[in-house]
């Protein structure tokens, strides 16, 4: 089907997130206002106004009532999804890079950038059922990794936190004590900045994308390297299909390296790979700029991509997609 072009952001996209039912799509961009769309036809439902800087990441609670957003304005905000009102603001002394709700939505893990002498941190906050009871105390603060931590997510059963970032090492932390449990080694790990991390639906494995032009699939309990998908461009965004054994990987040359002669030069396609065989299935073109964000609808029948060009492209798969034989 023809992709639906969703023009609502004025700046490059940074993150995309579907709610559990797959009827809403949340998008974050550098233009300060996260936006919610109908995931079916791409109609814009509303925006969340209040941030004063680029919004890097968001997550939505399982019951689609709460939205949490992390922004470069050094705050993480909690929103009411339906009304768009701000419920609470966590303030930090450096930009917030990533947010992720735990199973049960009672905890949220936040990463902050190194800034003005402050090192990067991973912090866990408790989310109160009633926003009136909300406090800004951190349950746990982890410091240690060098450089930006681009993503931190909850492992299975909220027992672990998995983080990845500029130092190109993936680490698994104990979510209770903050102890480092496992980390990737030089041989199997990424060689350059890890830009993105995406959990499978059952949290058993996850996919990471890196500037070293590869994406890797890992076991989230043992941190075993399962698969490597070799690309010919830096990877900015990854997503795992919940329905088929597919992964989608997007990226592109950095804007500074792109010649203006031909859009093919930048390799701004979203590439589909077979998750098990690691073979390329195909590509979806369209963005005029690197792809910064990718997300699969939880039903696996559509996906959306967000680019440096400020567009969100919503793709519903054609029937042929479901009968691809490898």
């Amino acid at each position, binding site marked *: 089907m023809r992709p639906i072009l969703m023009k609502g952001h004025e700046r490059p996209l940074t993150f995309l997130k579907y709610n*559990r039912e797959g009827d809403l799509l949340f998008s974050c961009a550098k233009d300060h206002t996260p936006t919610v769309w109908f995931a079916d036809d791409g109609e814009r439902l509303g925006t969340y106004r209040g941030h004063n800087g680029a919004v890097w990441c968001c997550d939505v609670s*399982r019951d689609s009532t709460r939205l949490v957003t992390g922004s470069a304005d050094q705050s993480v905000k909690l929103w009411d999804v339906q009304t768009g009102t701000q419920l609470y603001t966590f303030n930090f002394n450096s930009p917030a890079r990533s947010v992720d709700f*735990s*199973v*049960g939505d*009672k905890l949220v893990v936040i990463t902050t950038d190194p800034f003005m002498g402050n090192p990067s941190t991973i912090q866990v906050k408790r989310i109160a059922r009633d926003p009136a009871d909300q406090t800004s105390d951190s349950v746990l603060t982890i410091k240690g990794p060098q450089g930006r931590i681009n993503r931190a997510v909850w492992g*299975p*059963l*909220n027992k672990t936190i998995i983080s990845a970032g500029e130092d190109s090492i993936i680490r698994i932390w104990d979510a209770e004590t903050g102890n480092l449990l496992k980390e990737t080694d030089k041989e199997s790990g990424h060689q350059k900045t890890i830009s993105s991390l995406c959990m499978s639906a*059952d949290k*058993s*494995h996850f996919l990471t994308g890196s500037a070293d032009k590869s994406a890797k699939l890992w*076991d989230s*309990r043992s941190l075993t390297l*399962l698969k490597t998908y070799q690309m*010919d461009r830096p990877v900015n965004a990854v997503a795992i299909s919940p329905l088929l*054994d597919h992964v989608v990987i997007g990226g592109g*040359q950095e804007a500074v*390296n792109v*010649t203006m*002669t*031909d859009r*093919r*030069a930048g390799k701004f396609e979203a590439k589909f790979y077979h998750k*098990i*065989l690691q073979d390329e299935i195909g590509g979806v073109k369209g963005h005029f700029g690197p792809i910064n964000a990718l997300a699969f609808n*939880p039903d696996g029948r559509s996906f959306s991509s967000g680019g440096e060009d400020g567009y969100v492209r919503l793709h519903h798969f054609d029937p042929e997609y479901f009968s691809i034989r490898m």
Partner: protein
Amino acid sequence: MAAAALSMPEIENKAMNLGIDLSTIDFDNIVLPPGDDFGINSDDEDILHEEEAPEFETGYGNVIVVDNLPVVSPEKFAKLEGVIRKIYSQTGVIKEGGLWMPVNPDTNMTLGYCFIEFNTAQEAKEAKEKTDGYKLDKSHIFVVDMFDDIDRYMNVPDEWTPAEIKPYEAGDHLQHWLTDEKARDQFVIRAGTVTEIFWNDARQVRPDPVYQRQYWTDSFVQWSPLGTYLATVHRQGAAVWGGKSTFNRIHRFPHNQVKHIDFSPGERFLVTYSSQEPSNPRDTHRVVLNIFDLGTGKLMRDFRGSVDDFTTGGSGGLSGISWPIFKWGGGKEDKYFARIGKNAIYVYETETFILVDKKSYKVDNVVDFSWSPTDSILALFVPELGGGNQPARVSLVQMPGKVELRQKNLFSVSDCKMYWQSNGEYLAVKVDRYTKTKKSTYTGFELFRIKERDIPIEVLELDNKNDKIIAFAWEPKGHRFAVIHGDGPRPDVSFYSMKTGGITARVSKLTTLKAKQANALYWSPAGRFIVLAGLKGFNGQLEFYNVDDLETMATGEHFMCTDIEWDPTGRYVATAVTSVHEMENGFHIWSFNGKLLYRIPKDHFFQFQWRPRPPSLLSPEKEEEISRNLRKYSKKYEAEDQDVSLALSEQDRKKRRSLQEEWETWTARWKQYHEEERELRLQLRDGEASDDEGSQEQYEAKEVEAEEVLDVHEEIVD
């Protein structure tokens, strides 16, 4: 230090005993007798020993000895010194106090020789070259030697001893790669700091590694013309490598700062080139060319001079030289090499390494020349002179003897370019002429049939005379050529044949392909097939064309492609994006008919080169016979192909199956964990229906009517 032998209090005691007041002694000013350390090691020395000893200019490379000077009395000493100083400051800068003329202490007369020290060895060499044999007057002819050489001459033993004959050692099998059972070809690539050699295994659709080495070369690598050697280039010189299983170094060719290398076509000689910044910025660059024998590694001859001596007349432009400086002629025997100079061509023969007939070949105002690839025939181009009074001319000259075989005068010419067909049968001269107004030029071709009696010349003009010629290429070993011509973004490609029509052969056009995105032509080395390529501005459009049947076999694209090279057999084509820009670096291998076989991305990709093959040993008759009975031969290979492809697909299937099985064990484990953790998850979610059941959960669509009071407005109704 002393502390190692005596402690401080002990020293104080001893000093007290000796009646020395230690406080009055400045320790830093104590000087021990030289060469004696009193058994105390200086810590300064340790540091010196730890570090690597710095390299000093030890030789006397910058000193020359001038002999055969007049023997003069002290009164005339200053005058003679002045004269010598004058002569030698022309060639270089004499160091301060660098001129020393020894005097016989008994007679106070000079000894008839002097030493001169220059700033650099380069200047000393130049001084030796320029003034050796200089006539000061009738009885005083200078004999100049390098100071370093004197030692060498002194060491020559007076008695001749027979040279030691080393026992014969079997050399490595340098042609081993040609015996490959699958008749594959090799290629070398350079990416980053690694140089790698591969087999092109088209059946397995992948390259098969042969050898790789990091930091193998400082700048580039180059195969010799018959593929026997691979040359690497280093700061200290060039080296050639080859051998049966790995690449062993066969010879080293010392040449400091070597910049370019060139093999003779028959692999007998190697030419190396370097140029050096002048010490005085007003001077020109100094150029050194060495010619080595490839078989023995011996230096056969060197040429030195200023860069101007080697650029005159050439098309090299103002500052650069056009490489190769020496062009090789006389076919595969490498009989001659020649370079162009001011109003002359210098032709050397490789028997003696001196000029043919001991003098250069004078041709006034010659600007360009080229050898026939197979015969000892030179083609020369002399441009128009005297404002058009003397026409430009192209002439063919036989070597040795310098017999002019054919000459053609051309009028109102702006430029000429010569293209030889690879068998030396035809020569095409592309002539750019001025139009009548002299404001623009148009192009025509003069076609020489070298092998026919009297060398007939034919003039070919394009259908549209004003078309620009973008590319021209002869079919290797064939009688056809292709031309890309036209203005604007989509030029035309025309094919011509030299072999049509009756007894007197005439050139005729075969076809013109209109509006192609092409700017470069790549004929298969076996002829018949050609790749029309659109490089650079055309983003790598490729068209594989069959000239026998005049049809396009396939079109393709290698986005941003910069280089194209056919393998030496004409079976495969390599297209590469080299590191002229950062992106898309790597290479693709295509079959001759335009099927993309495989692609290899490589960052910082610098070079791709097929290993050349020596010419086939089969006679033309035999080749004819094989091509007639091709079916018989091909059966065997087709069967082999089938086997390989079956094995490949079997392999592939196996691999897939094992991957799938491996994956299933993982997912089984994950499922198990997931089940086990169900209860815990339920707790985390406060007993809310669990997660995996998302798809099974029953939704009920309910229509909810909600009323919202927007505004209450009271109005009094009368």
